[in-house]
C-alpha cells in the first residue's frame, strides 16, 4: 500500500485551445484519467482560446456535446483549482462580475468554478507539480 502511494503524482494541466478544438476534450479525458488513476491535479490553467470554456453563454445544439459544461461539472465535482488567464479572458470577452464591473461592461458571463487570475499562476503550477502537461496550441 505504502509503495503505491509513492507513485501518486501531482499534475498541472494547461489547455491552450478553444472549445471547438479536439484538444479541449483530450485534456478533459486526461484530467479525468489522472484522477481515476489516484493522482492529483494541483491546478488547471486555461490560456489563449481555452478561456472561452469559462463563458456561461455559449449554447450547443441539444444533440451535440457541451464541452464547456463537462469541464465545469468536472471542476466543480472534484473541487479543482481552475485558473483562467485574466488577460486572455478580457481580450476575448470572458468576464466575471468583478471584471464586468471594473471595465463597465453590461454583463458578466463567467463565475464559479472558474477563477480569473494571472499567468504567474501557471508558472507557479509548473514549478510545484511533478508533471506539467499542456494541451492544444
Amino acid at each position, binding site marked *: 500500500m505504502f509503495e503505491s502511494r509513492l507513485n501518486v503524482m501531482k499534475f498541472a494541466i494547461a489547455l491552450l485551445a478553444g472549445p471547438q478544438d479536439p484538444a479541449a476534450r483530450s485534456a478533459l479525458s486526461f484530467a479525468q484519467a489522472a484522477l481515476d488513476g489516484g493522482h492529483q491535479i494541483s491546478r488547471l490553467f486555461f*490560456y*489563449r482560446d481555452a478561456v472561452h470554456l469559462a463563458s456561461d453563454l455559449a449554447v450547443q445544439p441539444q444533440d451535440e456535446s457541451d464541452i464547456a459544461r463537462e469541464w465545469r461539472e468536472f471542476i466543480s465535482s472534484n473541487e479543482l483549482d481552475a485558473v483562467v488567464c485574466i488577460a486572455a479572458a478580457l481580450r476575448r470577452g470572458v468576464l466575471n462580475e468583478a471584471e464586468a464591473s471594473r471595465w463597465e461592461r453590461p454583463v458578466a458571463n463567467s463565475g464559479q468554478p472558474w477563477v480569473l487570475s494571472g*499567468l*504567474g499562476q501557471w*508558472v507557479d503550477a*509548473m*514549478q*510545484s507539480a511533478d508533471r*506539467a502537461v499542456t494541451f492544444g496550441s
Partner: protein
Amino acid sequence: MAADLKSLLVISRHPPAAQAAREALDLALAAAAFGVPVSLLFLDSGVMQLLKGQESALIKQKSLTANLKALPIFGVEDLFVCQHSLSERGLQSNQLLLPAKPVEGAEIAALLEQYDQVVTL
C-alpha cells in the same frame, strides 16, 4: 518549493497577426519575473517574430519588438532559433533583432533534453 526547474519555451507562431505570438512572450516574461530560468527556442513560423524592421503599426497591431528586447532585461538570455526554419523562409541570422543562437535538428533534440519542462506556444 524545490530549486527552480529550468523551462524552455518553444515559440512556433508568427507575428503579429496571431495573438498567440504575444501570449507566448507574455508567459516567458511572467516566468522570468518569477525568477524561473527560461530559455526560448524560436521554431517554424515563430522565427518570423525575430525579424528586424517589422512595421506592425501599418496593420494597427502593437509591435512585439519592445517585448522581445526586454527579454535580456528580465534575465532571459538563452535564445535559440531553428536554422532550418530560418533557411526555409530565406532568412539569415543577421536579419534578426536579437542575438539568437542558430541550432540544427540534432542540436534541438539535445537541447530539449537539458530542460525539465518544455512548453510549446
